[in-house]
């Protein structure tokens, strides 16, 4: 059944990129009659990381078109924002992307503080940075384990979760939750850190580099892993810009875009850290970016622990919060990329509109173009390196 819709579009931009093993790409000029079928991957599928559904038009194992179908865990966060007061929306922010809950709360809290002109005491800012970076490491660990289990190696998953539990212990001691922290408040944070937490952070910062080295020894050098990731799923910097893909995806394409550096917020300018970038743009580059980011996060935590001042952790906040009319944006670098909160206020004590611009949404939207002409296992490996959290996409 050679039909027009069966042909692989030969735009050359993605599938023909250098470094892709030719054996994994079907020759677009091939005259062999092709018969396609539709593979409905998900919404329940082990590689879907939740409830992503991808409608794949397949030619054998080659993907001619992979259209993500989302919305299976749409939880109306934006609508809920318009239904409750500013403070009551805070718990929602940790449930949008539950793996980097701290960053999301940070963005919302930051936007409101920007609008209401609330000052945050320095100790609270330091605690925010420490917890944010801890959360980033925890999130990357889940990604690392999940990627490896996508690739069929389950053991690293358990190693990563082992170390992640150490972070969760620290954060649980600080705010009482393992996953959905809701630790930040307008004007500060809800609990002051005790010595146990700071000492625990110190220990963790000392413990982690050896573990990261172990991760690299066990996994990064593995020939099978390199074959699975190198040259697979190239995403160019131009494509990232056109689709708005950020975070490790754009840094894996060689652009040093990091909100912490480009559009500094909180007290990040005070810290000395690098933005790891890798120019190849393939899955391996994204892998290495995240691995390097964990080291940088450790550096930031280390510096913050050195410099953290004493003092209050809550600033002065009006009892009933009302923002002057207008719109306020606040962007943070979440674990998956740029997270932007745009709130529109009409002067009342409830938001008029809360727009949550989530990184996974944009990162996934390029999947359709990037996966064209790949074979199924490679596409799933690439999807793994995009690090998707589905409720983050669906909101």
């Amino acid at each position, binding site marked *: 059944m050679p039909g027009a819709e069966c042909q692989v579009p030969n735009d050359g931009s993605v599938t023909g990129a250098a470094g892709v093993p030719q054996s994994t790409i079907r020759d677009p000029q091939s005259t062999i009659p092709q018969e396609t079928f539709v593979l409905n991957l998900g*919404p*329940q*599928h*082990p590689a879907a*990381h*939740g*409830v992503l559904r991808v409608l794949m038009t397949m030619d054998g194992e080659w993907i001619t078109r992979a259209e993500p179908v989302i*919305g*299976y*865990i*749409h*939880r*109306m966060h934006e*609508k*809920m924002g318009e*239904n*409750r007061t500013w403070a009551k929306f805070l*718990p*929602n922010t940790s*449930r949008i992307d*539950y*793996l980097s809950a701290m960053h999301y709360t940070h963005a919302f809290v930051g936007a409101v503080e920007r609008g209401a002109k609330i000052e945050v005491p320095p100790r609270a800012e330091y605690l925010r940075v420490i917890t944010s970076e801890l959360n980033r490491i925890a999130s990357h660990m*889940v990604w690392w384990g999940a990627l490896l289990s996508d690739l069929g190696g389950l053991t690293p*998953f*358990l190693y990563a*979760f*082992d170390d992640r*539990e150490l972070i969760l212990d620290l954060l649980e001691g600080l705010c009482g939750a*393992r*996953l*959905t922290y809701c630790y930040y408040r307008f004007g500060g944070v809800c609990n002051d850190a005790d010595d146990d937490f700071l000492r625990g952070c110190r220990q963790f910062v000392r413990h982690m580099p050896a573990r990261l080295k172990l991760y690299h020894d066990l996994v990064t050098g593995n020939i099978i892993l390199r074959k699975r990731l190198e040259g697979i799923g190239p995403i160019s910097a131009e494509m990232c810009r056109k689709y708005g893909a950020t975070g490790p995806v754009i840094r894996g394409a060689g652009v040093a875009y990091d909100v912490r550096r480009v559009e500094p917020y909180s007290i990040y300018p005070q810290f000395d850290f690098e933005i790891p970038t890798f120019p190849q743009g393939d899955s391996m580059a994204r892998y290495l970016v995240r691995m390097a980011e964990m080291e940088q996060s450790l550096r930031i935590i280390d510096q913050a622990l050195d410099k953290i001042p004493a003092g209050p952790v809550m600033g002065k906040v009006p009892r009933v919060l009302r923002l002057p009319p207008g719109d306020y944006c606040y962007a943070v670098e979440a674990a998956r990329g740029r997270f932007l909160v745009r709130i529109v206020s009409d002067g009342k004590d409830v938001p008029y509109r809360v727009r949550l611009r989530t990184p996974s949404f944009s990162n996934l939207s390029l999947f359709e173009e990037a996966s064209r002409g790949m074979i199924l296992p490679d596409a799933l490996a690439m999807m793994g390196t995009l690090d998707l959290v*589905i*409720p983050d996409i669906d909101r």
Partner: protein
Amino acid sequence: METQVDTSKIVKFAKLEDVLALGRAYSLWPLTFGLACCAIEMMATGMARWDLARFGAEVFRPSPRQADLMIIAGTVNKKMAPAVKLLYDQMLEPKWVMALGNCAISGGPFVYPGQYAVVEGVDQLFPVDVYVPGCPPRPEALIEGILKLEEKMTGKRRFPVAKLQK
């Protein structure tokens, strides 16, 4: 629960039933099926610190045909509900359902007057055997849910807890 045909009411093999119940209780294979936040805690339960494998329940099967236990770990919304129902129907009898987390129990924090997306509790779709509250529940809670389910199957609790004497 009335929707299922309870075969034990028709034919009863006393001892065999007990033995099989014991086997089922010690070999609960869950479906690899995570929805949202609770799925991360479900994963954590399978990991080294809590190790669901101790109870023979670490064999997460990706195909509903091979699974015994469906853990609804997260919010079910109206777009997803038919798929969840289909998965439940595809599982072979005997099967059990655990509603993990407030969202699966009642819709959790996403329920408010006028909400348009969330199914307010998976028990509106099919019978649920164990409810594990929490947002998200801790791994200990999930293990407790598994133990409760075993208690439901065998009539005995695996680790007896102290009870008030009457």
